[in-house]
């Protein structure tokens, strides 16, 4: 059994430890976002034509599938989640899609999502 002095010491230490501030950084949230995308268990790349598809699924398909998007910089994914500006090269598609989380697209016909072919 601990004595009163020991109890007070431990109570003080535990109390101080409980008060330690902890706020996940934006960089951590970006890494978590990248992880969630990378190991997403139901890849939407298999969604049937005309299905409602999320922004990330469109982006992933446009860039070559989920493994590719998981290799994007964490900041890119963080931009999707946290609301930061996306990298310049993704501005166009992001601006088109940012207003709503879901859009309806003919998924398998998305051959030129960035409008680069003329």
């Amino acid at each position, binding site marked *: 059994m601990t004595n009163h002095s020991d109890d007070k010491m431990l109570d003080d*230490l535990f109390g101080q430890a409980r008060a*330690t501030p902890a706020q996940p950084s934006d960089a951590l949230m970006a890494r978590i976002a990248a992880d969630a995308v990378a190991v997403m268990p139901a890849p939407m790349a298999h969604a049937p034509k005309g299905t409602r598809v999320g922004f990330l699924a469109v982006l992933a398909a446009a860039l070559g599938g989920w493994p590719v998007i998981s290799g994007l910089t964490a900041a890119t994914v963080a931009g999707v*989640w946290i609301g930061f500006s996306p990298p310049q090269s993704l501005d166009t598609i992001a601006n088109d899609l940012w207003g709503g989380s879901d859009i309806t697209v003919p998924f398998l016909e998305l051959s030129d999502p960035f409008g680069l072919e003329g």
Partner: protein
Amino acid sequence: MNKTPNQGALVDAPDEALLIAYANGDIAAAQVLAVRLAPRIMAQAIRMLQNHAEAEDVTQDALMRLWKIAPDWRQGEAQITTWLYRVVVNLCTDHLRKRRRGVALDTVAEPESGAPSVAQQMQDDTRMTALRDALADLPERQAQAVALRHLEELGNPEIAQIMDISVEAVESLIARGKRALAQSLAPRKAELGFENDEP
């Protein structure tokens, strides 16, 4: 960030519903879950580890495990928060064990606005380092029980559920853990500024 209509509906959804939605391909559900859970996980980890970088690693690792288990999550069998307490306390004790093996670490020691004096801050840091080291010296199960009781302030029945042991075993672990902590810290009482606290 503006909430989309879909996110607005998700914000009020239970953890388990969000996890299942993620397992079915809804990345927005994972977003809401991460924003909800990451601060809690981070808080639990930093209380035990007193190290910001390690606490962030634990937070990322714990959520990665959650994403991976999503398709196999058995509805109604366990609460996600209970599962996470177990995962996080295990990950933290792993980090403490590495520390016991002599891995050098940087401490938190992050200055804050409105912080106390430098001397007070130094003593606070010394105290937290001492507690962290003393926890690292405890047997793993004692450290986990003490942390869940005195850092997370959970009740013994909940700790028993998290650790999958009886309430009596929890009580025993906590009592032995606190006794060992007190013995470990006793030689440092004066350094930690506690002897002056005596009446």
